[in-house]
């Protein structure tokens, strides 16, 4: 064997490898590409499956706030569904204060295994890094459906709401009404063993007003339907922080979403 040839071949190979090393490095000035702003044709729903013991979940919440600031809070409607393994006491399995059995059922139904995770317009699970791109695309998709929350008010110990759904085309799906609450002060875990016991939770899922999976709705072209719903106000809820999220969904899409806060105890017509 000729060791000179072997060394030459090896050196050539190693040098060849080295020539590939510095490829495709993006300088700091070139890292952002400008794109056209989204033309808003619909609002977008983010179901944020979160938990009070989930240390990475506040990062997902920050992302939601960032997206609402970028795209408009009326266009990006988030619901924080406290659920999953980080929504329960790891020793006893008991629900943590913000977790609901309905939220846990949703978590199981979608086959979710990790947190934080979100579902945007019911197009499958996605991580918070992907939400901006998904929302940018979803906002621009035209939809025939519009929703109007005509009334949403407190009547004694009950909450009453009148919701109207219109469609420019024949559509068949479900109307879902969720109650959310803002400004709930409670515990939240953070990385590095930090526990914030005065964390302010927003858009927290409280209950599904018209059943876990909503009410069937079927509209012909140009038709509208208005329905009245009520639900009992729990004593732990603060009326001034409540909001109603209404959306129409099909098997794998959310056609339209709207959110309206409850502003006073008499009504907000």
């Amino acid at each position, binding site marked *: 064997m000729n060791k000179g040839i072997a060394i030459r071949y090896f050196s050539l190979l190693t040098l060849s490898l080295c020539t*590939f*090393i510095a*490829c495709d490095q993006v300088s700091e000035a070139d890292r*952002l590409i400008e794109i056209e702003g989204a033309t808003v044709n619909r609002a977008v729903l983010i179901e944020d499956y979160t938990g009070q013991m989930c240390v*990475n979940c506040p990062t997902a919440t920050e992302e939601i706030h*960032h997206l609402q600031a970028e795209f408009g809070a009326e266009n990006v409607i988030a619901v924080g569904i406290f659920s999953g393994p980080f929504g329960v006491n790891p020793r006893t399995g008991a629900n943590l204060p913000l977790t609901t059995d309905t939220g846990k059922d949703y978590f199981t139904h979608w086959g979710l295994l990790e947190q934080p995770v979100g579902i945007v317009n019911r197009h499958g699970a996605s*991580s918070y890094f*992907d939400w901006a791109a998904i929302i*940018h695309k979803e906002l621009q998709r035209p939809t025939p459906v519009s929703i109007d929350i005509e009334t949403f008010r407190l009547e004694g110990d009950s909450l009453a709401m009148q919701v109207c759904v219109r469609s420019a085309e024949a559509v068949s799906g479900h109307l879902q009404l969720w109650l959310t609450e803002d400004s709930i002060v409670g515990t939240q875990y953070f990385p590095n063993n930090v526990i914030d016991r005065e964390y302010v939770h927003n858009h927290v899922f409280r209950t599904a007003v018209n059943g876990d999976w909503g009410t069937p709705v079927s509209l012909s072209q140009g038709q509208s339907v208005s329905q009245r719903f009520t639900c009992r106000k729990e004593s732990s809820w603060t009326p001034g922080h409540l909001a109603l999220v209404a959306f129409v969904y099909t098997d794998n899409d959310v056609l339209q979403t709207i959110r309206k806060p409850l502003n006073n105890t008499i009504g907000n017509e």
Partner: protein
Amino acid sequence: MNTRLFPSTRTLAIVTLLVTGLDAAAQSGLTFSGSIQSDILLPQTDKTIRAQADEDVQTNTYVDLGLSSRYVDAGVRFEYLDHPLPGFESDFKGWGLPYFYGKVHLDKAELTLGDFYEQFGSGFVLRTYEERSLGIDNSLRGARLVLKPWQALTVKALAGRQRNYWKHNKAWITGADAELSIDQLLKPLSQNGHRLVFGASFVNKHEKDEDILIDATHRLNLPKDVTAMDLRLSWQKDAFSLLGEYAWKSQDPSFDNGYIYRNGQVAMLSASYSKKGFSALVMAKRSDNFSFRSRRSQNGTSSFINHLPAFTQDQTYALAALYPYATRPQGEWAYQAELGYNFKRRTPLGGRYGMNVKMNFSHVRGIDVQTLGGRGSDGYRSSFFKQGDETYYQDFDIQVERKLSKAFKLNLMYMNQRYNKTIVEGEGGMIRSNIFIADGKYQFSPKTTLRAELQYLTTPDDEGDWAFALAELSLVPHWMITLSDQWNCGKTDVHYYLGAVTYAIGAHRIQLGYGRTRAGYNCSGGVCRYVPASKGFTLSYNYNF
């Protein structure tokens, strides 16, 4: 949802031709081999441990078939994972023929077409492998060429796309590796007993662009080619050996690193001494932003191109393995030292039959991080030799193995452990524990052996103390009966009992069991996944032919 991954018609034709060709070449010596592995669970609901029975039967079943001859090999694997055992990612579900290959091997060259596994060096830039218990199979589908033009030189080249459960990621992976035995070129080295090997590797991932927005009007300019290279030098003489390895990765914004543009690097140094009766090993490794996947937006356990070895010892005893550490590709300093000594028999410390003592120390902590920014930035600065503030994991253990009589052997172990549960699992703080283990084996007769383990873990943290007991009766050559119980005597008072009967005959092995399995967390890349508790009957069958 059923998901299948069948090879294309053309590929099936190639495999069929190969098999037919092998049949025709029977005079060269055709060997047929394979294996069947099937693990089945009949789950039951158990409110105490929160185990649910969502399905009647759950199984992970694998059938491997292979044909080999003097010059040509071929193989295929069937997997049935449509109702998998608990704790696997949702994309794991499916069934089909996800793995097949044809290989031509000559004296100095080998060509593989189809699916293959490969590792370059220590795996820093490329390691594709299968680990069924973790649901990992990141094989490449494409072509691999191995050349050995001279005894001193081995060269590999490969190209392919990586398996991601029941599909293949769109990115193309190309790579090359060369290893040169310098001692074969410089005769004085080999003549004096030195072995010196130099290796160099290169891997490139080509992935098309995608939209990662940072605000309503800007998206990231993502590098479509990510390159990783590895250099290593190993030296061995007599009982001493040294290995130094360094790997570097170009900009690779991904879910794992928060879409930053910092380059990645890994450096490792290890030294060992091994002679009859005595061994010592010290290793140090620093990794920095070195998660390398074939899909930048992937999370969970899938699609890793590389693998960073853990510098913590794999523990087989139940309580020593209760809090296992998972390597963090984002960045860590890791150290490990091992010492082993065999006291000869008929010496004061060795006693009549001899005594073996092993010690191990592992320590893992974070690297220095000075944050610069988020998505689109360089992420952070990090001084190479500066350590981070946080300990991720530490353990020290000492094991003593001694035969006390002709029939009785005893193994004692003490372990002190610190496990940062928040870092690894997302919550829980630092778990500090002391673990005591006694493992005795008594041979009643050449065909009858009884092994018993007693373990105790004491900790003021997490769920408190645990106790574990196991008895295993072997009736050679066919039977084994095992009973065990893991009891949380600290806080929950829950028993995780298990009983199993195993029968082995020839190449067949079948095990029937019943009991409870504890729940836990599996964390990777900033997202933690819950592995649920389970209870029920288990049936395992293995056959190798």
